[in-house]
């Protein structure tokens, strides 16, 4: 859980960079519906950035299943384990 909290913090920084918005605050429940501009293209940009940052790789099925920040955190945590 401690690591997931760290991941959430790191993702917040990542999202702020990608969306060019320092006001963004993420919770595990945050999804595309909550963040204007988080469309399918932005989603791929986020996934690419996550893969590069953590040196991990998601499968096609995993990418489509990642719908919320909580999903992202859990998936990253699982990959890092």
């Amino acid at each position, binding site marked *: 859980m401690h690591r997931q909290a760290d991941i959430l913090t790191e993702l917040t920084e990542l999202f702020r960079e990608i969306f060019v918005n320092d006001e963004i605050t993420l919770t595990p429940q945050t999804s595309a519906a909550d963040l204007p501009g988080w*469309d*399918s*293209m932005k*989603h*791929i*940009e986020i996934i690419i950035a996550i893969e590069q940052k953590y040196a991990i790789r998601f*499968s*096609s*099925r995993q990418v*489509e299943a990642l719908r919320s920040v909580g999903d992202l955190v859990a998936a990253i945590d699982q990959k890092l384990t």
Partner: protein
Amino acid sequence: MNAIALAPATSLLVDFGHGGNSDAFTREGWRGGEPRHRWSVGARNVLVLPPLAGGRRLALTVECDPPHPPSVRQDLALEFNGVALGVLQPRRGVPQRFLLPDGLVNNAGDNTLVCLNPQFANPADAAKVALAWRRLEVAPDDSTLFDQPELLPELKDVAAIPLQAVLGLYQSLGQNCELGIFQRRYGAEPIGLLRFTSIFPDRLVHGLRAGFAGVEAADQLSLVAARPGGELMGRQASYGLSYHTFKLEGAVDVAAMKTKEAQRLGYLARLFVEQLENDEKIFVRRGDFEAEGEIRALHQLLRVYNPRARLLLVQEAAERAGRVERLAPDLYRAYLSSFADPADVPATIAYEDWLKICATLYLDQAALGRVAPA
């Protein structure tokens, strides 16, 4: 005395059992005959077949069993005269068939079939025997896809279907953005290289053959608005992709966007190939690929990635709107009352027809065990 040139064979049967004729055709990668079969050995098995008559479509049928008990999964990548033909997944007692595309067969010289088996294995046997080959046949294929298409039961009520999950099963092979926009309307957002893309048939064929390798090359990408302040359209030159970015000129830094777009295309190409290899989607092409030869060739290209690749072709025919036909295993055709008007796609999509088609085929696939039931 002059050598007599034999006429190319119109059909060929190779019997791998003891007393059969396989010695004439096997080259590297084989072990001596068993009573009813012959073992392939190692990672590369080669057969050299005689000249085969052209002018007719030919089918290659292989009967090949895994060792018993099965050790590890062994899929064979088949190459015919240097061209990838598909993947053979040996199953006991189940012949597997591959069409030999027009122009691939050599009628004036030998024809070479190479079987690549990187997972060759039979741990209990130091000889590394892999698979038990029983028969190989090359014969004319006179069947047509359109003789007796099987009409799938028509779905009357789509209300009970979880649309987002169902519609996410389908992946566009380009032509235009109609399927992508239809999916978006009902909240389905499958990740797809060609989802909002227009690509001509010959470029699609080229892309599938190449796995869209190099699509991320930045010098092949441009972002252009048809009019000042209009939507930026992505144009990828090497594969002839033209796609929506849904971003307006003036609202974004085009240079920065171009760098990200190139990266995104490369990533999507990787996922696209994965979807093809893992049989994750039903691939959909709308409008073109109507002639049987074109349809077969397109399906065969998908089957190079996975022998069970599924292809849905969508045509326009008002009297058959919403119907789905099975033309062959894993090959389907369906009908819309009309295609969307390119000038105003979202407003002119035949949504009800698409819903019926997608739900009908989804239930068929669920009944076949190819997807989780809705």
